[in-house]
């Protein structure tokens, strides 16, 4: 028994060491990004490279906003984030509808919704562009936002969660004379907080990172998102790695901060949604 516990503690030490080693390897790009973003332009091209900036500077970050229109890109990105949350609400409503109502065509419509998950983006990209073009929505914010408002996977996860809410609860509220939308907003949403938390984070990350669709739809720089702006930076300032790293850090760090606050909900959410 004693040797068993001893073996265990050796094993645990090895596992912990392996995890730390792998973790450091995985984080190298991040460490490199952060450290380079504070270096002056001359120092990032220095060979051998410095691990910590010798002359730390905020110049690169200031440059992004002063010379590079990152303020506009940030505003556009936040608009997209805002509307993706509206979309999240629509998905939640649909999930609730599929979970808690009995209506004609429910199964069929739900399967069609699920089927849309299988269609590769490349198939729909061109027709969606053509449809938006017919609607006159290319090169507009609406064109960037609309196609992303509904997502089958999100509807599916909401439905999975909503089916676990006791129907009696809803019936009781109806007997008390509450309207359907009142029930949804005052009763269902508070109960569904955990699933909203998970999907809220995923939605935020998705919207914050949105790149390809804005790139396709937006021609004016005034509609660019942070990702599109950053890719522009990569093209124009190919050798100013310090500036590029500052741009990258500006995109990545907020996500990491938000994620580290909420990561426990993500794991719980996946456990909950039955993906086991």
């Amino acid at each position, binding site marked *: 028994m004693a040797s068993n516990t001893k073996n265990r503690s050796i094993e645990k030490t090895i596992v912990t060491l392996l995890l730390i080693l792998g973790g450091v390897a995985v984080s190298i790009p991040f460490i490199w990004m952060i450290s380079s973003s504070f270096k002056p332009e001359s120092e990032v091209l220095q060979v051998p490279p410095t691990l910590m900036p010798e002359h730390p500077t905020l110049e690169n970050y200031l440059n992004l906003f002063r010379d590079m229109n990152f303020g506009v890109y940030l505003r556009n990105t936040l608009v997209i984030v805002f509307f993706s949350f509206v979309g999240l609400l629509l998905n939640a409503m649909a999930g609730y509808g599929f979970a808690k109502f009995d209506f004609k065509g429910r199964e069929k419509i739900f399967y069609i919704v699920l089927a849309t998950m299988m269609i590769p983006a490349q198939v729909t990209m061109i027709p969606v562009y053509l449809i938006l073009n017919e609607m006159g929505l290319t090169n507009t914010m609406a064109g960037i936002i609309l196609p992303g408002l509904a997502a089958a996977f999100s509807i599916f996860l909401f439905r999975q969660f909503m089916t676990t809410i006791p129907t009696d609860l809803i019936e009781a509220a109806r007997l008390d004379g509450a309207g359907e939308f009142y029930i949804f907003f005052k009763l269902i949403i508070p109960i569904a907080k955990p699933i909203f938390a998970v999907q809220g984070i995923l939605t935020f990350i998705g919207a914050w990172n949105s790149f390809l669709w804005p790139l396709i739809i937006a021609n004016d720089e005034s509609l660019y998102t942070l990702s599109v702006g950053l890719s522009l930076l990569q093209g124009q300032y190919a050798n100013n790695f310090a500036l590029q790293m500052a741009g990258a850090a500006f995109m990545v760090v907020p996500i990491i901060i938000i994620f580290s606050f909420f990561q426990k909900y*993500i794991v719980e959410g996946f456990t909950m949604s039955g993906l086991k």
Partner: protein
Amino acid sequence: MGNVYKNRHPYMFIAPAVLILAVFSIIPIIVAFIISFTDLDLKGLADWSNIHFIGMQNYSDLISDDLFHKSILNTLFYVVIGVPLVIVCSLGIALMLNYGQSMVFKVFRGVYYMPSITNIIAVAVIWGYLYNPEYGLFNYILSLLHLHEVPWLQDPTVAKLSLILLAVWKGIGINMIIFLAALQGIPKSYYEAAEMDGANRLQILFNITIPLLRYATFFVTITTLIGWLQFFEEPFVMTDGGPLDGTISMALFIYQKGFQYSKFGYAAAGSFILFIIIIAATLIQFKFRKSDTEF
């Protein structure tokens, strides 16, 4: 549920999301199918009378298009190396992370998840710098170890491997979380029973843990496979398909034909071939899966 509620309400709840999906997901697939039989390009976009129905012409052109062949072979290369690597790495890390409950394990869970939430452009910018032959960190580290420098993105085959390395780094997080969620769902009593029976750690791993992860493994395999068949962003932002078309994937081929050369009809035909390959790969997976289901 009472009859009273079988009225307009359910439709009001599902209508907004379902309508958007219909317009931007379901109708487009029909449109894609139709335009794949036409010569739709920029002229056709401006004036519909310039669109001609050309039957299977796009498909037969694709079959003899060398670049399309190359994109298929590259995509296979990505899938064959990338998919197993992602699954093994994410399962391995999930098993290690599940080993303890202390703070260290929680922190490293975050660390391993970080790449997967990182913006692809930021990833491209950072990795482009790491891979830089002159100023990059990787070649510098190799030079410290007195090893030859590697042409990370300059040689067609090495470039493919470099993109896979990057995509594995980025792909571990989400799959690891799914494995971790599945591991946490395994009842403790199974392990206790096995320990009572004197099973050692490896026996427990191979006879209890891995079989019980069957569903998660299946889910991860399917989604990873579909994801890698659509491999797009990494070659798009890192190499734009080069050098010598060495990294062009099917999805990138479709994007370039559609949005850079405005050959919408041709691209749509390509996208349908990709779609068929994805469906076939998914069906094969389902066929291989044992008939028992867990939920």
